Structures are given as C-alpha cells and as structure tokens.
C-alpha cells in the first residue's frame, strides 16, 4: 500500500505562555512559567489556587454577538485555527473545501457553558436556560465553529480520550491525509475547563499540585522527587497537515513532516498508567515512521508531575529505547504551560515542531531534587539551543488508558 507523506505547514496556538507559536516557544526555551494564581471570583473557595490561564480577550478577536454565542473553548479553537490557516498561507477561495477536514480533541468541551446553565438552574432557580446552551456546550462545538467560519466541508470529528485527545485527533487526521481521504486537515485540540466545578472535581481526585510556597510558578515539578501533581491549564493548538507533494508544489513553508503515530489502550486501570501499554503505543509510532529507537533525538514527555505518571513513563521509555534511553533528551514542558487536558498534546506537539524547526530543546523546569525512579536526561531547568535533532516524539497518556504518540521529522 503506498501512502502519502504528510507535511505540517501551519500552526496556531492559544496558551498560558503566549498566543503565537513563536512567543510560546521563546518562553519555553527561556524556562518561563505560565502558572500563577488563578484570576477568578471563586478562587477563595479552592484548595488549589494556581492554574495556567491563557491571556485571551475574546472581544479583541470576535464581535460581541459571536463571542456570546461561543464557549471559551470554541473561541480558543477558532482563533488558533485562523492563525494556522494564515501561517500555512492557504488561500481557501482557491481550494476544494470538501478535501479539507477538521479533527479536534477536547476533554470537557464547553465546560463553562454547562456549568453556567447549572448555576442558573440549581442555584438561581431559573426557569429557562440561555437558548445557545446546547450549542455552546456540545463537545463538537469547536470543530463545527471552524467548519462554519471557513466553509470547510471535509470530515469533521471530535475526539475525547481525556489527556490524549489531541494526540489522537492529530494522529487520526494524519491518517486521513496519508491515505488520501483528505488533502489538508486542520488538527489539534482545545480546552477551557478552569471552572469552579471542574477544578473542584480535580481537587477531589487529589491529582493537583500543591502550591510552591516560595514561587507559585514553580508548583509543577515533573520527574522531581518533590513533585506533588499536575497544574490545570487552558488553551488550544491547531496544526495544518497537508499532502507533502501538494505542499511542495504550492511552495508552502514546511515546518516539519509528521511521520509517526501510535495509539492503543492500557486496558489495565482507569487512572494508573501501564508502562507496557505506553511502550506499545511508542513502538507503534516508531513502526509507523519506519524509525529505530536511537533515531529519536528528543521526547516531549507526557510528564504530568503526578506521583504515578513520571516513573511509569520513564519505565515505558526504557522498555522501548533500552540502552539508548539515557542518551535521549526528554522534557516535560507541562512544568511551564501546565496540563491543558484535551489541548495539551496539541500544544506539546507545537513545542516539538518548533524544537525541530529551531534545533532547540525546551527544558523541564523545577527539577532540582531528583527521584531515583526517574533517572533519564530530562533537560533539567535549562533549555538546549543549537542541538541537532532529526526526529522528535510527543507522548500523551490519559485517564481511561488511551495513549497517543506522535513523531515529527525534519523535512
């Protein structure tokens, strides 16, 4: 079976570290943290008062009417999609729009709209909800908003596999282009779940990081002995995937080539990760890309900073990479941008593409106290510019057990 090569020709992002790929990556390389005290009216009722919020004013980008009819998650997605299309220099007036699809990932969809409805109903005793409630809350609202905005009539799907949602969406979009079902795919994820109810639910799961008393921005400590958990974040990232021949023919800037995708389910426990399951997805991605483990020059880890994830992921990497494992730089950029749930894999994939483009590896910050169970090269605290890398890997694992692993390569 002949398959097409897939180019990454555009990127768009809304993140706690900036709303362009350039700003986001510059901040990552500088080791800056986007984690801070949550700016919201319910912060006093939270045990965990830190989060990674995106600095995003919808009225700067949309009319009042449009902003009011889109949940924050769709606002993020629509803005990131616009950036990605512009970055790819796609002239949609000249395109067969039935050959362009949209695959997005999200964990909670329109969380704020659902919660606002419940507040009206249960707290305020209202008789009616806002007419747009269903349309704002539904999980496919973000992908639909992009299709409507740009008239894109190709396949339009929303994937929800918790923390790996946007790895799976990018991977499945890759398959669409690779196998000729589409010529161009917008793929990524969006999440806006910093609502009172959602944060409280995460608190109850005891998965959230304690605030670092000296520096709230340093609260997320992946792979460190003193790590205490993850920090919730919000944002979106969308990439343009395109048939490589077509991209070359139109003279597009090819940021990177998407070469590998692996996915599977641990099928072992709802929350506890399985190194064997993770290793299977990593192997599958390598097989898809036709690469050997030692070809990988950088791994952007799932690296949530929970007690269970980081040793399990380390073990999974060792299972696949064997004797090469200690030589492969691995970092968790979640230490800086937090965990964006359904958007996190897409945001981290943008970090990977930028790492390839700039030949620079972002660090894991707040890694001062080693954990004997986490003994790889995690690029502690300081990024590495001027590092030759040809192939990079992005790992994403999830509650519910679905893994997604992506490999991008220098074109």
């Amino acid at each position, binding site marked *: 079976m002949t398959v097409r090569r897939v180019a990454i020709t555009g990127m768009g992002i809304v993140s706690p570290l900036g709303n362009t790929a350039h700003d986001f990556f510059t901040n990552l390389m500088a080791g800056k943290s986007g984690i801070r005290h949550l700016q919201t009216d319910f912060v006093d009722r939270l045990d965990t008062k830190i989060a990674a919020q995106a600095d995003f004013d919808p009225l700067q980008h949309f009319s*009042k*009417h449009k902003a009011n*009819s889109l949940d924050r998650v769709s606002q993020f997605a629509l803005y990131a999609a616009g950036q990605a299309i512009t970055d790819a220099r796609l002239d949609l007036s000249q395109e067969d729009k039935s050959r362009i699809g949209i695959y997005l990932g999200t964990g909670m969809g329109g969380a704020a709209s659902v919660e606002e409805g419940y507040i009206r109903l249960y707290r305020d005793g209202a008789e*009616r909800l806002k*007419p*747009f409630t269903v*349309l704002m809350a539904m999980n496919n609202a973000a992908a639909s908003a992009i299709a409507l905005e740009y008239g894109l009539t190709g396949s339009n799907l929303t994937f929800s596999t918790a923390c790996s949602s946007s790895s799976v969406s990018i991977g499945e979009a890759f398959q669409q282009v690779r196998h000729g079902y589409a010529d161009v795919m917008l793929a990524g994820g969006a999440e806006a779940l910093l609502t009172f109810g959602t944060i409280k639910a995460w608190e109850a799961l005891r998965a959230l990081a304690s605030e670092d008393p000296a520096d709230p921005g340093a609260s997320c400590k992946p792979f460190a002995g003193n790590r205490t958990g993850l920090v919730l974040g919000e944002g979106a990232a969308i990439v343009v995937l395109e048939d490589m021949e077509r991209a070359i023919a139109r003279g597009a800037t090819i940021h990177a080539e998407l070469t590998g995708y692996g996915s599977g389910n641990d099928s072992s426990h709802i929350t506890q990760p399985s190194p064997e399951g993770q290793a299977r997805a990593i192997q599958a991605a390598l097989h898809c890309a036709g690469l050997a483990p030692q070809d990988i020059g950088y791994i952007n880890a799932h690296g949530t900073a929970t007690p269970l994830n980081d040793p399990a992921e380390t073990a999974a990497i060792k299972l696949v990479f064997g004797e090469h494992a200690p030589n492969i730089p691995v970092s968790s950029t979640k230490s800086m941008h937090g965990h964006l749930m359904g958007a996190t894999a897409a945001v981290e994939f943008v970090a990977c593409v930028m790492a390839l483009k700039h030949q620079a590896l972002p660090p894991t910050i707040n890694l001062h106290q080693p954990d004997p169970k986490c003994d790889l090269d995690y690029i502690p605290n300081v990024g590495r510019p001027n590092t030759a890398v040809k192939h990079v890997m992005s790992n994403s694992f999830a509650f519910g057990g679905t893994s997604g692993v992506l490999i991008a390569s220098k074109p």
Partner: protein
Amino acid sequence: MDTFETLRDIVADKFERDPATITPEATLEELEIDSLDTFDIIFSAEEKFGIKVPNDQVEIKTVQDVVTLIDRLRTEQGKA
C-alpha cells in the same frame, strides 16, 4: 418601560447595531437576525419584562411582531 425602546436596546446591544436602524417595521431578516438569534432576543426580553414566552409561539417577521407579542404577554401575565 416602553416595549419597543427596550427591545431596540436589547437588539442594538447584542448585535452592536446602530439603534436608528432598528425600526418597528424592520424585518428580522433585514436585520440579519436568524431564528436562533430570535430565541436569544426573546430570552433576554423574558428576563427584562419578567414574562414567560410559551414555546409554541406565533410566527415572527418584524420587530413590531415581537413588540406585539411581548405586550400581549405582559398584559396576560400581569407584568405590564
């Protein structure tokens, strides 16, 4: 509270329109207000006037149709 003026202000605010363009005779179609947006306007009117618009409402074409509907319900529901 004048029904038309209040409704005009709701529409002008929601859609960022010049209130002068919102006349009683204007059709919702001319104002580029679709059926979904009409529900949204009715929702705001319900809150503003303290009325409840039944789900099976008569066909609405113009701004005046909405005003007439609201006035009727205000009287029926004792919120005038």
